[in-house]
């Protein structure tokens, strides 16, 4: 996904100084041989897998979303075509719209906070001494490497009702006795607070490192010149750094939006630790609870198709941008 960041050819966006991946923008048009049969043969393995595991299931998903497809159909009963019934059922179901609203709000909060924190940390890294930058790098790397599931379980333990550190510190250190056996996950709002902490904690390193790598590519002459002209730090950020890093920001934001809208593991695991499913479902867990747990495969399929369309709509800008800037 983010390979596109590297491959984007607008000069300032190339991430690494060595430019290992992105060919020089001014390179002469590549010569490509007419291959006859060879290129198709080379594509066969990939195509077979992608058609079998993405194409065919996607086709089935669309068919299924037009059918009444429950547990009985899984065991062989012929499915009945109901055409748009599943769709009208979902689109008129207030629960679905609550889930959509919840997902959008959660993703919005997470994306904004992740971007702001990640960018601030990247700017900070530019100005830190060697030791502190190394310290920060190691910390961020550890957070980044933690698998989402383990991270969620560990955060669940940190926020645990009876023996969690947070409650313990709040009660014993700050004397806030209200937090004795306070359940963080039972209230939907504080459930999402915890979920946001988990998601943002895991996502900030990616943003920080990517933006930092971009920052090191901003030519110092430009910044120095601006400084001699008496610009403030904020002005330099707004008028020099932001334009230079524009395409990095675009790609990172879109990836964050997609990832945060698709969030599953963190919410699912937190629900397992102690959230109320009905009040905390987001799109991913909602599809799961309708189809896998509820056995309503047709309805689940329709929701899935709607989600795919939604994500496509969001990412179309990214796809177009990439196609435009890439020498395909």
């Amino acid at each position, binding site marked *: 996904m983010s390979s596109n960041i590297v491959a984007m050819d607008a000069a300032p966006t190339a991430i*690494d100084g060595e430019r290992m991946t*992105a060919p020089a923008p001014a390179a002469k048009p590549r010569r490509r041989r*007419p*291959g006859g049969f060879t290129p198709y043969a080379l594509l066969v*393995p990939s195509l077979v897998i992608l058609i079998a595991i993405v194409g065919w299931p996607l086709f089935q998903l669309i068919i299924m979303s037009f059918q009444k497809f429950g547990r009985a159909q899984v065991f062989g009963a012929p499915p009945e075509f109901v055409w748009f019934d599943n769709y009208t059922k979902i689109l008129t179901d207030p629960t679905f719209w609550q889930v959509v609203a919840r997902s959008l709000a959660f993703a919005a909060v997470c994306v904004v906070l992740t971007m702001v924190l990640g960018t601030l940390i990247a700017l900070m890294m530019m*100005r830190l001494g060697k030791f502190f930058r190394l310290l920060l*790098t190691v910390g961020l790397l550890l957070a980044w490497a933690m*698998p989402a599931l383990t991270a969620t379980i560990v955060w669940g*333990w940190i926020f645990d009702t009876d023996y969690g550190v947070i409650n313990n510190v709040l009660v014993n250190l700050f004397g806030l006795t209200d937090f004795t056996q306070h359940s963080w996950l039972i209230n939907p709002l504080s459930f999402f607070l915890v979920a946001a902490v988990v998601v943002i904690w895991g996502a900030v390193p990616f943003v920080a490192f990517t933006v930092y790598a971009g920052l090191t590519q901003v030519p110092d002459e430009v910044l120095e010149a601006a400084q001699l002209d008496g610009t403030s730090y904020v002005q330099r950020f707004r008028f020099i750094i932001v334009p230079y890093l524009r395409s990095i920001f675009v790609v990172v934001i879109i990836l964050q939006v997609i990832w945060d809208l698709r969030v599953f593991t963190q919410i699912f695991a937190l629900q*397992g630790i102690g959230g109320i499913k009905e009040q905390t479902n987001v799109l991913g867990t909602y599809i799961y609870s309708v189809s896998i747990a509820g056995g309503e495969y047709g309805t689940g399929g329709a929701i899935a198709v709607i989600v795919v369309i939604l994500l496509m709509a969001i990412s179309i800008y990214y796809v177009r941008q990439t196609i435009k800037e890439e020498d395909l």
Partner: protein
Amino acid sequence: MSAITATARPTAAGAAIDTTARRTGAGKKRATTVVLSILAVIVFLFSVFPVYWMINTSFQPNNQVRARVLHFWPDNFTLRNYGTVLFDQNRAQFGPAFMNSILVTILTVAIALVFAFLAALAVTRFRFKSRKAFIIAILIVQMIPGEAMIVSIFRVLDGWSLLNSIGGLTIVYVATVLPFTIWTLRGFVNGVPAELEEAGMIDGLSRTGAFWKITFPLLAPGLVATGVFGFIQAWNEFLLALVVNARPEAMTLPVWLRTFQTLTGTTNWAAIMAGSTLMAIPVIVFFLLVQGRMTSGLVSGAVKG
């Protein structure tokens, strides 16, 4: 990864700021540095704390974990929790799940790299009909969310009797990482001039020989970077594994950890943290080992998955 390697080289903007700071007065600069360093330490602590707390809890006896007093380091050090996780016969078994995870991960990485390398060669080195269409399709496929497809993937695998098998899960994971891998390797192959291969062919290599002897070795950084992506993706993936390989003997580590957690309830946090540590350590170690070799842009997408 440049974000990391860059720590070694002097940073541009940092130097620029230094010059002004000297002009505006060393005192102000010193104050800023101190404030920033303190902030850096805070961010560091916040990033590391959960990892530390996981390891710390895992080495404490469970009755101490469930006590009123916090222990910020494992002063009653014990390995009992690891014993529980690894050898307790009454709980979901760690060993088989670990083996399943390792197998699926290695197979996924190997197959995805070979397939993607071939596809990347096709789209970079040859001119053919529908070349652009293929590349755009690759880009779009990445946007289709896996969780939307679980039900139909389940049915497809069921139809082929591949549920609860290493092979079935591997195929699914290969399909998941393939688009990204092809896309990324394409960039790397583009970076190796075709002239090098042609020179090799003049010196008597076949076209296939030229690919393998000349282009392939030059792709090492790209293969490492995309391999890491596949590794982390396959090792951490939870939802598909949960649905497709639900049987105890076919479980991978994330599904095992989840079952383990549900079985122990909230009562045995110490053992759960030991299990979490066992699952996280391979990724963390692997990550720290290879990060130096990767460009940051690649890692980025890779790791979050």
